[in-house]
């Protein structure tokens, strides 16, 4: 494409169909005990 460059797989929809297993960490446990960021976590499936 000339005008648009897509940076990622944009796979959120796909992730919903296979997701919800609950294996990943609770998000506030790693470093961030006072402010919530989920998107920096890894899927652990």
């Amino acid at each position, binding site marked *: 494409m000339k005008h648009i460059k897509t940076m*990622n797989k*944009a796979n959120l929809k796909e992730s919903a169909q296979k997701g919800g297993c609950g294996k990943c960490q609770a998000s506030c446990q790693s470093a961030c005990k006072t*402010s*919530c*960021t989920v998107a920096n976590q890894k899927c652990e499936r």
Partner: protein
Amino acid sequence: MIHKYKLGGFNIVLDVNSGGVHVVDDLTYDMLDNVEPPFEEECPEKIVEKLSRFYEKDEIMSCYDEIVELYNDKILFSEDDYEKYAKYSIASPVKAMCLNIAHDCNLRCKYCFASTGDFGKGRKLMTLETGKNAIDFLLENSGDRQNLELDFFGGEPLMNFDVVKQIVEYARSREGEFGKKFRFTITTNGLLLDDDKIDFINKEMSNVVLSIDGRKEVNDYMRLRVDGTGCYDRILPKFKKLVAQRGDKEYYVRGTFTKYNLDFSEDVFSLYNEGFDQISVEPVVGDSSEEYALTEKEIPAVFAEYEKLARRIINNEKQGGKFNFFHFMLDLDQGPCAIKRLRGCGCGNDYVAITPDGDIYPCHQFVGIEEYKMGNIDEGTFNLEMKKEFANAHVYSKPECRKCWAKFYCSGGCNANNYQYMGDIHKAHKISCELEKKRLEVAIMMKAVRAFGEQE
């Protein structure tokens, strides 16, 4: 829903519902103000006319085609069809626990949200019996979840370290029987660290959070010992030693910034220059009447500092340096699934906090707020109605989140902040949201720089 912004010389477009991130030229950026589904076969004449004052007609036509192609691929203007998943985690098992092992602290940090360690409830240490009951509760309420998380928190957990060791031993002794694996973490101010504790932490804890604010003068202004002196010189060598012996295991040095150090990129780099490469420096949580609090007035300065920090990190990478800044970490491809993203930390649902008295709260930030007491570990009570209330607090039940572009990145923010500032776990706290959105925009821009090089 799309969100577009300009930063660092890039035009960035997020397709909120697919997670798509696109870097676009000026023409596309402008055209996206004028088009939305349903699309026509060719670019409508009135749009061509409007844009042809600035762009060539052929370019306009081909740009429109690209937008339509991405729409057909469902990575631009894609539909939000996740609300049906919001009900999935209502009966979620409890898999993570914060053990407030000591409601006591040997520091008197000026910004402490825990009233210098005792959460306003008197100084107490957790007994081994309560700790064992907490482990049993987690084993029995975690359903099919194999990985269980247990965070030793306080106050200062090293003030009750013998009990920490015995709880770890007890939990390990029961893992096999239940088919579970405990992941322990600990958060410490470092004052009581010695070689034995460092060895134990590095052996047993999958993550350790080391509290230090950055520059000595910044740290020592807020993080005071009981005698009023700063703690920096005492903790820094201990933290260095712990990290040096830790190998590949996770850790964070974690600082707090306040109104007094709005130049906090200096603190991040101070920690980096001391040899740490896993760094988190986060905005203070506190009542807006406090001197140190961040208010709406400080937002522009904090935004500018996040941009400055990003530039400094990129420049550092160009010179071969590397470290992780927790709040800029973002995985655009392999991050958590959409279902996980509907709720944040899971507090009050799959995550709870336990006090030395055995009281159960939705998380450490709710501790001491009587109306949010969920039960007691020693008495065997647990309020499932309240658990359900928290399970139902997701991005679709929070009015501001529902319409926000950042909802699948922050997942509805911090329920405790919402309650403390707004009086309702469903009401977004504006300043937290503004800072979160800025961090996301900056973090995505940094990805663009790494992919395409600098634009300015």
